[in-house]
């Protein structure tokens, strides 16, 4: 893309997309430079200086083993964005593929996929995650596996529904008449139209997944210590919520800010991509 093309594209961005993207970029950059932004290490404890309220030395205070909360929040950016990214976009990829194929092919494949989807939707997520954690132990990878097994369903549904619409459109029929193979028709021609609603949804999904890890941490099923993951920090601080509110509240704030930027991006993308159904959050 040339500079002019980029400028034109940016000019077409709605305000919400610009604001959201700027914030998100800031968060990413902060995460990348986290080790150089504070003088502390996210793991080093100072048992003598535990539960210190926010001050100039520790703007976010210290936690229950004397670690600098700000440092841990900043280091947590990398972990949480990685978790959000992987738990959102990996299932989205095959969810889209399966849904689009299902919608395009119909027949027995569609029926099979839909029953499989029903099982995945109807199966209680909590049972699945507890079972997987009981076998493998808690950790980022365990969460990935559980989410991978179930989270594709929303994308498959969206893609299937869009594909049902696209399938009947003139250009697909034309491509078929010309004798192009099915895969090419689906993935080269219809897919770009199918994918938009999923991209918009993925912004909300990203936040939901970070929140899911936070909920799992509350049940002790999140990432193991001492990893500075936001949800785990929020959960670890909850016993101290009345005497040291900052341990759990400030990482929570990080989730809110990230969520807000993603939501704005989602809304803006919906505008830009001309989606009928706008942002999901």
């Amino acid at each position, binding site marked *: 893309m040339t500079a002019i093309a980029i400028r034109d594209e940016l000019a077409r961005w709605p305000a919400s997309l610009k604001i959201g993207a700027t914030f998100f970029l800031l968060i990413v950059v902060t995460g990348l430079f986290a080790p150089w932004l504070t003088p502390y290490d996210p793991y080093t404890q100072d048992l003598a200086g535990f539960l210190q309220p926010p001050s100039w030395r520790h703007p976010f205070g210290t936690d229950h083993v004397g670690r600098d909360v700000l440092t841990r929040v900043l280091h947590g950016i990398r972990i949480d964005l990685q978790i959000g990214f992987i738990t959102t976009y990996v299932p989205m990829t095959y969810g889209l593929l399966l849904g689009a194929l299902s919608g395009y092919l119909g027949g027995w494949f569609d029926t099979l996929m839909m029953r499989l989807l029903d099982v995945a939707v109807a199966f209680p*997520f909590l049972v699945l995650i507890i079972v997987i954690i009981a076998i493998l132990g808690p950790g980022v990878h365990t969460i990935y596996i559980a989410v991978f097994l179930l989270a594709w369903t929303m994308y498959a549904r969206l893609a299937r529904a869009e594909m049902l619409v696209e399938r009947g459109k003139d250009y697909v029929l034309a491509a078929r008449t010309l004798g192009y193979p099915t895969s090419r028709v689906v993935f080269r021609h219809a897919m770009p139209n199918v994918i938009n609603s999923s991209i918009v949804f993925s912004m909300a999904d990203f936040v939901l997944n970070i929140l899911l890890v936070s*909920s799992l941490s*509350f049940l002790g099923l999140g990432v193991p210590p001492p990893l500075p993951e936001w949800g785990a920090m929020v959960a670890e601080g909850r016993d101290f919520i009345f005497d040291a509110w900052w341990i759990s509240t400030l990482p929570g704030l990080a989730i809110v800010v990230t969520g807000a930027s993603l939501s704005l991006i989602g809304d803006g993308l*919906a505008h830009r991509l001309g989606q009928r*159904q706008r942002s999901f959050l």
Partner: protein
Amino acid sequence: MAIIEYILGRILQMVPVLIGVSLVAFLSIHLVPGDPVQIMMHGRATEEVLATVRGELGLDRPLPIQYLRFVGGAMVGDLGKSIIQKAPVDEIIGERLGPSLFLLVYSAVLAVVIALPLAVVAALKAEGPIDHGIRIVGIIGFAMPPFWVGLLLMVLFGLVLRWFPISGYGRTFIEHLWHLFLPSLTIAAFLAPILVQSLRSAMLDVMTADYIEVARAKGLSRRRIVLKHVLRNAAIPVITVLAVNIGWLLGGAVVVEYVFAFPGLGSLLVRAVGHRDYPVIQGLSLVFAVIVMVINLLADLSYMAIDRRVLRR
């Protein structure tokens, strides 16, 4: 008649799904290391006692036999007996099903009550400062950890103002409403923002649709247009959001259940897994699956009631 055939067909479709869910639940829970009898006896009982109790519970039989026994029982409505509580599983689940559903319906109603006016304002003033303000507040409500919201509400309404009790369920309908207000509000704080945004989008779409222009041209007031046409069409996303989330929240409300000491299905499930109470876990998986499917069916039926074209497609 077509509608009854449709419903029957949908119910028939549930059967293979239930078989799939029960099989996955059964296999996965038996894959997990841990022995319910050993856990129940806290590591003090002798091997002989452990073996005897396992035998009494039928846990020493081959897995396929155990599964068939479970399916056989489930088909005649017998979900077995809890290993640790020695009470019928359907009774144990039944006791909590009512409160859990009450909590969710209450939360959904509160969420709609909160979301509707906000969404109308946001849609009418789209892209204005009020719209953005509503969005930001919504995101804060949505992204705040539920236990945090719950404790905050508890401190404010339970401890400082003393308007609502901080736990319990109550006996009468009115008492349920009173006791469950804070937990429901906690869940609604999560649901309402999603609803607001979906509703707002839907309303914006409808407002720009042709027939609204026609209505406007006919001289109908803005207020009447919103009430009559826009809201009716906006009901679809509301149903979608609620259907997707209620199924999930049935088990996922466990955090709220813990904070408010509320006897719901989520905490029952966590406890049952901790004790490896196989019959309870299997029973719960089936119940969750049925509820999710029934909610989806109800959602589809209400789409039809709103828009008959869906059925034809």
